């Protein structure tokens, strides 16, 4: 087990190293941020001085070398635009994004799995068909549209929920205050629709497959109660693909909350990264992508560990 963890850790470091190089190179090639940082009345002399102050007048190799030296000291450089340490800027925004993603995932699982089970047991019942129809719309309707419709109904017309912003924040999250919760409802719903539908459909397919297996028939024939057959024998065995997908989807959620964040003016990392790419703010882009790839790597690791609990046949 320890060997496995160390091995994974080593791979992760290599992955992040490669990512840093690629991103650094792309941002280096993308253009000169000083043209955007200085106002039109700046002189050529100001441009040269600013380039020097930011260290971007050096060759690519020199710049990357300086970057690696700083990384060794735990410093990813200062943002060109904000002037603050890049990692601080990213970490300041990360809780908002994580909060949204985690809540959306929890919501999707809590509703998606039971609804999927219900729809799988009696697939021909009217309620199963209704669930499947709703899940289809959850998958096909664009996030942007869902968000705007929610805002139109609950903020503009009814005035029940605030249309945007994060509300009161306590201990890095807005989930502990009433004002914060009111701000969370619509973004979390918007972000979960697709995930919920996906999880629901996967659960249903998985369950239907497992329910046809011989050991389920055997258990039923033995007289094991229906409830135990469904929720213990069948569900547990259909979980592996579900966990894999949830793992991947969670990474996706963190990395692609941008649309939801934009609609609800949610101060997460999605908006930050788009702004930073537009402003050619290389330190932020590099720091953000390193943090996100670390999250992906960590999730994959957790998913692998979870397999062993769900299915003892799997060995790490």
């Amino acid at each position, binding site marked *: 087990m320890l060997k496995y963890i160390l091995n994974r850790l080593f791979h992760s470091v290599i992955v992040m190293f490669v990512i840093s190089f690629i991103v650094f190179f792309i941002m280096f090639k993308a253009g000169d941020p000083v043209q955007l940082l200085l106002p039109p009345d700046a002189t050529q002399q100001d441009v040269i001085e600013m380039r020097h102050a930011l260290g971007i007048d050096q060759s690519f190799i020199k710049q990357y070398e300086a970057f690696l030296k700083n990384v060794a000291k735990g410093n990813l450089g200062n943002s060109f635009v904000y002037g603050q340490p890049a990692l601080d800027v990213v970490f300041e925004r990360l809780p908002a994004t994580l909060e949204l993603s985690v809540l959306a995932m929890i919501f999707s699982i809590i509703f998606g799995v039971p609804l999927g089970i219900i729809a799988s047991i009696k697939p021909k019942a009217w309620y199963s068909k209704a669930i499947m129809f709703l899940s289809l719309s959850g998958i096909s309707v664009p996030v942007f549209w869902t968000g705007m419709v929610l805002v139109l109904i609950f903020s503009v017309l009814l005035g029940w929920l605030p249309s945007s912003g994060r509300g009161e924040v306590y201990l890095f999250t807005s989930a502990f205050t009433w004002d914060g919760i009111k701000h969370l409802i619509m973004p979390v719903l918007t972000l979960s629709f697709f995930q919920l539908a996906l999880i629901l459909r996967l659960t249903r397919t998985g369950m239907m497959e497992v329910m046809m297996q011989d050991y389920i028939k055997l258990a039923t024939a033995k007289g094991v109660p229906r409830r135990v057959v469904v929720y213990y024998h069948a569900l547990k065995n259909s979980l592996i693909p579900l966990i894999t997908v949830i793992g991947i989807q969670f990474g996706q959620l963190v990395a692609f909350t941008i649309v939801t964040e*934009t609609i609800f*003016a949610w101060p997460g990392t999605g908006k930050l990264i788009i702004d930073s790419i537009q402003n050619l703010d290389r330190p932020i882009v590099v720091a953000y992508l390193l943090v996100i790839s670390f999250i992906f790597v960590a999730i994959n690791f957790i998913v692998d560990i979870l397999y062993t609990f769900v299915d003892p046949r799997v060995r790490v």
Partner: protein
Amino acid sequence: MKKLTVAVAALALVGTIGFAKTLKVGLASGAYTMDPQAFNETATNSILSNIFDTLVRFDENIKVHPDLAESWSNPEPKVWIIKLRKGVKFHNGNTFNADDVVFTFDRIKNWKKSGFKGKVSMIDKVEKIDDYTVKFTTKKAFPVFLRKLTYVNMLDKETVKGKSDEWIGLHPIGTGPYKFVLWRKGDQIKFKANPNYWAGKAKFDDLIFRVLSNNATRTAAILSGEVDLINRVPVVDVNRIKNNSKLNTFVKPGLRLIYLQMDQFREKTPYVKSPTGKNPFLDVRVRRALYYGINEDAIIKYIMKGFAAPAAQFHPDVVVGYDPTIKRVKYDPAKAKKLLAEAGYPNGFSVVLDAPNNRYINDAQIAQAVASSLAKIGIKVKVNATPKSSFFPKTAKQDTSFFLIGWASSDGDGSSMLDGVVHSKDDVKGYGRYNNGKYSNAQVDKLIEESDGNMNPTARVKQMREAQKIAIVDDQNIIPLHYQVDIYASSKKIKFVPRTDSRIWAYDIK
């Protein structure tokens, strides 16, 4: 009974005193830093103008008014004596005096990362005469001196000296009407009224700026009453807001000109295919044909939905140097065709038009409309709309033959565009940094340089007008399209004053 009345009255009084008035503003973009000398950019400047004072300040029509400078004199062309307002305190209680002024100017000058160098580069020396008198000596006679000072926010020497750039970027302490409370990046910035503001306490006790960069979100926030004021109202939503009985809309002409410029210096230009193989833009008749051949009325009507003002010259009418005699020509495709034929291009030519797609209002669509207008006179235009991060470096290298760009005369003085766009490119003298079509006319250069040092306002404006007339009327160095306008929406509960400089100065909002 009497006792009860008194009690009720007292309660009512407590009620009014205890009720804090809050002004919530929804902005299309937020601040990048709280350091007023770092990033010279409209949204950041706008927010920080509520915390920091300057020596002189623009009013809503971009005229210069005293702020921390009580009065000034200009005894010699290069010398300005400024008398400071007495009894002004910073938010932390420190007294504002001449040392702070000297320190502020020194920091901009010496800090390599300051974006405000262009506002102080004309200054040679800043000296303290006494605690409340400062003497400025400029390198040359400099008529735009006071206007430039409107960008220099006064810092407290005792607070800032020795602090890191990162610290200053998070801890703004000024003398302005509002004090800093908190900044949740990407979400909101909270200020509270400064009770000791030298001109009297602001009407609103709390001021909250929220960043609502998505257009539909910003509209939803004002419609649902979550904010009292929004800027940059999307043109498609203006009517919806107008129909709401609780809201007002405001339209204020801005300073930004949107225009086209073309390569005027290369015999062969990279992105043109012409029958002769030469650069057609070298011929003034071709440039003039473009002016006649672009249907700007249609652009304003269909793309800007009426929210733009047609332009015929470099500056809108509030800017010093505006020339009322220059009028826009009427759209005339027949005349444009004739001019092209005279220049030897009866069948036109083809060209790539570079444009940003995230910098100006509807920038890429305007470029498309220009292309379809010019197609009617035989010029095939291919639009290359890219994000500003690649557009600006590309045009800065003159890797373009024809481009759409904007210019805001942010000092309210025509010299900014004349120096930056019209004068020949000259990195040594610091002229023409954005003249990437490299238009060059020695007579225009001479007039601009003379006007830049002319301390007689009337004579100066005459020179500026003359330079403009030669450049735009005779030489057609650029094709002006329109001036942008700013659109705001506010709740009827507040009295909002829109400003030419696009800033939101909460002290004037009642």
